[in-house]
């Protein structure tokens, strides 16, 4: 590749101020929220789909990879350009193109920050449902890339359930539309195949999403337990009883202490774990649900059951939850967040095993996660000045995922495979399953132009993690 020539041609497409190529700039774009890093050859900030298409065609001519990047909050190295090439930043394609009230749809550019869309429709008593905890920063393009979830996706579904159509730049550099504002477009569900494909099948330049009414009433409970085990038993019972709250989140003692220091909400400092249980719907319905949930929690010996008194208290409760990773960042120089999913009935035993694994590897552990979905986020704290720490973290992480595999779970509920977990794919998928995915990859991107080095295990990998050198982006104080 002739980098200087490439940069010249890119400048011709997007202008001088849309191309970043200095060492300093490239260094800033080598991170996301995970622990892998790699530098792009050049960063481009397009303003339109036409520019994206021209860039993709240039990449084809020069034979370099194209990696899309939203806000870089990903937790699996999704936007890390492991094979170098062009990093496409969407910071300038951040317009809400249309809010279509009659159809209950919005059309957005990929760089729109998740929360901004819900804010833009709140006065209509509408919302965009998927609400990742990073929603103040992450983009809807990145959410489409990872098929992001969030606390409230328990009842209402994840990103793929709310995305109905996309504008896409294909590997050939063409701008095409898939899906649309109406449901059930004839043909294969290309939209569904693209959501969650981690930027490996094409570059998304526009997104049609569903808007939904805000609930009439919300009741947020804080259930306090003496241990993680008790709290997870309560989760199993709630789901097993057929109660599906709008959100059902767990924080353990380590997390609670960190969060309390950051928010001063008044979380109980002697608790082993708490559940945040949010009920939404008609007033009548949530009263009944609240009673049911209360009774189920009492069955496993809840220590205290508090109800957020008003919107302010509710907001504070959620602030604590949504900023928990950041708060934990204050406790340690670095941390590693996992994303395994297990059947909800298996939560108690799996959480016990994870605690044992962390102890075995001598790592501090915190748990803050989407319990109602069985979507774990064990967070392992470490200090990379300790020469053995990083390797211990990776090995412990792999063991945790082996536990998830053993109970029929998944390695990732919302963060994606990325680079981070690609070599653990064989724990969950056999050769034929991977072959099927390769078929899909070849349909969209036969030359492997888009985001190479993601999702697929590296040749010869069979559920083992190879040591890599890591440098870490600590999220402490990151405003989330």
């Amino acid at each position, binding site marked *: 590749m002739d980098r200087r020539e490439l940069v010249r041609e890119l400048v011709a497409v997007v202008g001088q101020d849309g191309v970043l190529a200095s060492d300093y700039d490239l260094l800033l774009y080598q991170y996301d929220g995970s622990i892998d890093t790699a530098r792009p050859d050049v960063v481009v900030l397009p303003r339109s789909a036409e520019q994206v298409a021209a860039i993709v065609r240039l990449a084809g001519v020069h034979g370099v990879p194209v990696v899309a990047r939203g806000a870089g909050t990903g937790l699996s190295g999704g936007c890390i350009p492991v094979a170098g090439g062009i990093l496409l930043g969407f910071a300038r394609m951040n317009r809400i193109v249309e809010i279509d009230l009659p159809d209950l749809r919005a059309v957005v550019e990929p760089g729109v920050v998740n929360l901004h869309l819900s804010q833009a429709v709140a006065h209509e008593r509408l919302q965009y449902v998927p609400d990742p905890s990073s929603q103040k920063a992450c983009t809807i393009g990145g959410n489409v890339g990872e098929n992001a979830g969030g606390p409230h996706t328990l009842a209402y579904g994840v990103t*793929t359930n709310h995305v109905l159509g996309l504008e896409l730049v294909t590997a050939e550099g063409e701008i095409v539309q898939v899906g649309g504002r109406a449901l059930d477009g*004839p043909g*294969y569900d290309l939209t*569904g195949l693209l959501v969650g*494909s981690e930027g490996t099948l094409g570059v998304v330049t526009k997104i049609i999403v569903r808007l939904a*009414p805000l609930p009439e009433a919300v009741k947020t409970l804080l259930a306090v337990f003496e241990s993680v085990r008790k709290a997870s038993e309560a989760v199993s019972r709630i789901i097993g009883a057929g109660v599906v709250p709008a959100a059902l989140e767990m924080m353990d003692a380590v997390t609670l202490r960190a969060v309390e220091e950051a928010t001063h909400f008044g979380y109980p400092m002697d608790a082993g774990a708490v559940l945040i249980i949010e009920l939404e719907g008609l007033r*009548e319905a949530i009263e009944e649900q609240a009673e049911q949930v209360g009774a189920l929690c009492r069955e496993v010996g809840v220590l205290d059951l508090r109800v957020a008194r008003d919107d302010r208290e509710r907001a504070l409760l959620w602030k604590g939850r949504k900023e928990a990773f950041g708060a934990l960042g204050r406790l340690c120089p670095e941390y590693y967040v996992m994303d395994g999913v297990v059947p909800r009935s298996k939560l108690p035993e799996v959480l016990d095993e994870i605690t044992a694994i962390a102890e075995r590897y001598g790592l501090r552990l915190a748990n803050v996660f989407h319990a109602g*979905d069985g979507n774990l986020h064990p967070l392992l704290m470490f200090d990379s000045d300790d020469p053995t720490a990083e390797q211990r973290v990776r090995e412990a992480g792999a063991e945790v995922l082996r536990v998830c595999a053993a109970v029929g779970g998944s390695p990732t509920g919302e963060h994606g495979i990325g680079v981070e977990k690609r070599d653990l794919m064989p724990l969950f998928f056999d050769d034929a399953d991977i072959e099927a995915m390769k078929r899909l990859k070849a349909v969209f991107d036969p030359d492997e132009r888009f985001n190479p080095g993601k*999702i697929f295990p590296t040749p010869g990998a069979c559920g083992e993690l190879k040591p890599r050198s890591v440098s870490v982006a600590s999220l402490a104080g990151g405003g989330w």
Partner: protein
Amino acid sequence: MSAATEAGVQPSLAPLADALGAACREPSPDELAALAIHGIRPRLVCVPQSVAEVSAALRVAGAAGLAIIPAGGLTQLGLGAPPRRSDVLLDLRALAAVVEYAPEDLTATVQAGMRLVDLRRLLAERGQFLPLNPPLPDDATVGGILATNAHGSWRARYGALRDLLIGSRVVHGDGLVSHSGGKVVKNVAGYDLNKAWVGSLGTLGVVVEATFKLQPLPAARGWSEAAFADVAAAVGAAGRLARAPLPYLGAELLTPRAAAAVGLAAEHLLVVEWGGPAAAVARCQREWPALAHAAEARRAGDRQAAPPTATWGSADEVVLRASLPLGHVVPLLAELESQWPAAGAVAQALTGTIRAAGPLELGPGAPLVRHLRGFATALGGWLVVERAPLALKEQVDVWGPPAGPLELMRRLKQAFDPAGIMNHGRFVGGL
């Protein structure tokens, strides 16, 4: 498919019959009527007893160039363009086992030949259900429902199959057996290939196993209805409902002809189904008349049960299905009523899906379908011919323009079914 087979030379069935042995038979004259599609009859019927047999069948058929028609409960076999050939009907009803039902996790994995009615019975014992109300649940199989993306009014509350299917095991057209997703309710590991199979009309291969996210049965259900002077008023009421955070399961709008066809008074009728705690349902029923009257209803009140719309439309009627963005339902319904007055229409008023059924003569039929399709497309929607006689299907494309580049869809078909044996030619763009 090779040039020779396209040209009409019939490939030998022997390799397949040898490979599957007792699972294959020549169809009897009696059953041919049910198995023929627009007069095209299968030469062989195979009833695989295991996933391995499905895989073997497709591998052998691919090598021998045998055209395969996968089949479940035979309720929607006619959907799609007429098949170019039918060598083998692959009857999947022997694969009907429950693989794993985990009520405590609200998930179930079943084989695709299981009938929806049997699945419902199983789940109801534990107070749960697969929240899907497609037509003909007594016969329809899980695989058939998946292939045709069948659904009903409950989609408004719970989504459709693309939202409910969390894992699948499939046999590609070339015999490859793969799985994607899993049995946990949230999962982004690798590509979401489940999406490829929903609504793919068996053109990529065969779904053999499906895992679904389940729901608790609502504690109470109830219905409300209202009658309106015209389509616009009825849709207006539905629009208010769509913006209101009420626990509806779904809502159906019947045009006067459709209402009459199912034995109700001939008027523009909107029926809402509620589901949730009894107190919530009662409140919705109580407050419904006010909402409906604010939208100029002529009358509004409770209803005792769902209108029997699921199977309406007689066998010799033409059925068109349109999907519109929610705010664009009125013009299409109005156009339907004025251009095809003999038809009735039922709209899923909260999701924008419309089914219109009525007698349609061949002469004016094709131009009418084309006109309505153009109309729907201009409104940002789609229109497909769900049921029609062969003669009409020969004059007008069943599917119309696809919702994405045909070239990508063609490559997908080619990647999964390289020999082109699966329901070939029946899907969009002749795929």
